[in-house]
């Protein structure tokens, strides 16, 4: 009762002071499915919607309502942003080519209310000038930029409230640290971390006061001397150890833990100069949301030499596990293995490949993978390839079907070749390289058949067993996220340019639309005035559909 009263008063306070989205609304986002308040819909990042207007029966009647165009992009930047929708207003950021444009628009018509523009300074990004979206809390949006600024923007006017340069570690050069993620808001803090794993950065996760932008805590992904985990780095290799952050974390309010996936160790493809497991790269870390202290960690790919970033979104759920309820975390990793962990303790519960995997051969008693191949200067063929069995593209979990949906790259391999390389600030610190038969840059046409390897799919995995329940096969690979709904729908897309709906129970194709460019964000759904909408970005546009 006391909790309810407190919540009521907080909501009232929010209304009085014009706070559009007090944290309590984000905390209870599943109670207002007409809105999309975080990267994955809620703080559990399931990308699961309780909206029921669009069903398996009528999804074939979806038709285009409006399109948001962005400036024509360069060859590698993609429209990766997940929009936020609050009470009929959509907030979305266009990729900085060359400027960021954060827009507030009418989510029913696509008409723009205001635009905030920011021209980032010099930035070095490995894989495009990407942004995964803006976060919201109170009456502010939070934009993390490729020149390592955190910017607060007024939700009502688009006015810049503050714009702070975030301090980078004194390794590499400052422009090596870029923010491409949507920040995560937890209580009164905005949490983020930098990309830059190919440039010898030293990753971190940092929390900032949502009101002032002042830094409140910082967790070093690469521990310095005296910190636990530092012993997993030989010599001075920790200084350029990598461990970048590309995607937002999740949050469990009962445990007060925030969970984050971390990127590859540096140099990427030669582990010789960094003997040891190289904590906390290629890991998930559970941090106290108030202090940033690490409570537990699990390393998916110890001493990684295959660029298997664990920069996926942690998906949280309370499911029945071996006959009793358990608070778990589900994770389809770039290394090709699907994991279930106990999110209170970090205990390893299950690990099972969801694509062809040759880099490891099972787990030891503690759940540590047993490495099966060694790299060499003459090259070694490894499955999955450098781009992984999946990547940063968000998966989805549907509590109704009990299935976990993964966008996958099937039957991929790379030949990894290592070489000695001195660190030089401002250049790629790779230590070799992989072959990448299918590039990072999406192509408009494809001449490889799926019989020749390298095709895409959406896979449904039963988290209780790791078994694959169904697979929807695409001719080409995909960088699309997945959305699922309470009406047994799965929405996704791919590089071919199709945006489609599947039956969440058996993977049957129910509807598709050719959008003319690759789908590279996570689709969302929301409702305005009783109409349910579905939005996906493809190529240079954000496309929004509703039933006709």
């Amino acid at each position, binding site marked *: 009762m006391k909790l309810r009263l407190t919540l009521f008063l907080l909501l009232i306070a929010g209304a009085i002071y014009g706070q559009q989205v007090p944290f309590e609304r984000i905390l209870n986002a599943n109670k207002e499915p007409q809105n999309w308040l975080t990267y994955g819909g809620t703080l559990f990042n399931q990308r699961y919607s309780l909206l029921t207007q669009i069903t398996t029966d009528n999804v074939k009647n979806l038709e285009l309502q409006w399109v948001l165009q962005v400036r024509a992009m360069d060859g590698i930047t993609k429209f990766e942003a997940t929009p936020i929708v609050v009470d009929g207003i959509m907030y979305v950021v266009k990729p900085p080519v060359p400027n960021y444009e954060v827009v507030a628009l009418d989510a029913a018509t696509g008409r723009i209310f205001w635009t905030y523009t920011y021209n980032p300074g010099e930035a070095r990004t490995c894989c495009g000038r990407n942004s995964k979206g803006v976060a919201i809390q109170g009456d502010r949006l939070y934009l993390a930029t490729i020149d390592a600024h955190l910017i607060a923007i007024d939700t009502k006017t688009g006015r810049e409230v503050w714009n702070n340069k975030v301090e980078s570690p004194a390794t590499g050069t400052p422009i090596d640290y870029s923010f491409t993620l949507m920040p995560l808001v937890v209580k009164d803090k905005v949490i983020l971390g930098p990309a830059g794993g190919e440039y010898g950065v030293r990753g971190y996760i940092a929390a900032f006061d949502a009101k002032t932008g002042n830094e409140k805590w910082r967790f070093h992904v690469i521990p310095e001397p005296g910190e636990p985990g530092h012993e997993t780095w030989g010599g001075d290799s920790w200084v350029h150890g990598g461990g970048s952050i590309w995607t937002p974390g999740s949050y469990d309010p009962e445990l007060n833990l925030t969970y984050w996936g971390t990127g590859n160790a540096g140099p990427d493809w030669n582990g010789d100069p960094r003997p040891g497991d190289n904590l906390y790269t290629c890991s998930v870390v559970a941090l106290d949301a108030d202090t940033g202290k690490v409570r537990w960690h699990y390393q998916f790919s110890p001493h990684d030499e295959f660029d298997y970033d664990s920069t996926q979104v942690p998906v949280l759920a309370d499911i029945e596990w071996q006959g009793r309820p358990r608070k778990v975390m589900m994770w389809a990793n770039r290394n090709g293995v699907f994991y279930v962990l106990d999110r209170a303790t970090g205990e390893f519960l299950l690990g099972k490949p969801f694509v062809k995997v040759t880099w490891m051969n099972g787990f030891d008693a503690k759940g540590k993978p047993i490495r099966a191949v060694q790299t060499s200067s003459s090259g070694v063929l490894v499955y999955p390839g450098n781009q992984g069995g999946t990547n940063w593209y968000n998966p989805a979990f549907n509590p109704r079907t009990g299935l976990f949906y993964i966008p996958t790259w099937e039957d991929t391999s790379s030949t990894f070749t290592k070489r000695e390389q001195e660190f030089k600030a401002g*250049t790629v610190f790779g230590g070799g*390289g*992989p072959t990448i038969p299918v590039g*990072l*840059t999406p192509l408009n046409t494809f*001449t490889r058949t799926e019989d020749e390897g390298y095709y895409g799919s959406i896979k449904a995995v039963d988290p209780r067993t790791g078994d694959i329940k169904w697979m929807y096969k695409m001719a080409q690979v995909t960088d699309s996220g997945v959305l699922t709904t309470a009406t047994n729908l799965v929405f996704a897309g791919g590089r071919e340019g*199709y945006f489609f709906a599947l039956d969440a129970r058996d993977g049957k194709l129910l509807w598709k639309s050719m959008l003319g460019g690759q789908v590279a964000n996570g689709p969302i759904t929301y409702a305005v005035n009783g109409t349910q909408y579905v939005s996906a970005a493809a190529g240079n546009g954000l496309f929004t559909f509703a039933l006709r």
Partner: protein
Amino acid sequence: MLTTILTFTLLLAQHAFTPDEIAEGGRFYQSNCASCHGSAGDQVPGVALMSGKFRRASTDDDVARIIRNGIPGTAMQSFTFSEQQAGTIVAYLRSISGSATPPPDMPQLGDAARGKAIFEGKGQCLTCHRVGENGSRVGPDLTSIGAPRPPLVFFGPPPPAPTPAAIVQQLRQSLLEPDAEVTPANRTFRAVLKDGSSVTGRLLNLDTFAVQLFDSRERLITIPRTDLREFTAVKSPMPSYRDKLSAQEMSDLLAYLMSLKGQVK
């Protein structure tokens, strides 16, 4: 290749770039420029970026400036590279064109003019191939077949671009054994439809729902997968010239093909 790059690097008086920097320039190029210019720099008509010659620039700084500022009134947009980054792209382009200097292992080739006559006459190459505005579109366009084509690379050091000697070797192999190595974009497929009809052509595009072919009558054709009974790669329609040309004729023809670098008027 490394030796070539190092030698070339030393020759660059105004800007010296290390192999790693040149490799990064290659990655910048392939991820930002190749979508318009092509991986070999020859997709924009009249522009051959890897020939070492630039129409609107005479110095490396000029080229870097164009990369950063674009060319107003043309499709060449500006890019947000730093001066250093733009410099690495220029160094990469120079490193490729630098490798066009005939190395010692380059075989002695015949006469290109005689080779052109064979190409257009006895060899009947224009029946399937095109050079500039002449010939058929059915086979691969050979307008820039003699230019080095660096492999697509996104991370790490790029594999060596093929040397002229290697290109000659590849061309010779294609003439003698046309099926030995066919790039994915040039493969011929046969589609047998459920009604028993069939279409054979070059595979232009393939997705989950359809295949798209360019057939021998120069038609652009889409076939829904639901209409397909079979879809298989078939032998290249290109004949072998093993017993059709003398050694001298082969040498002349190779000389002509090696002269085709995307600058045909």
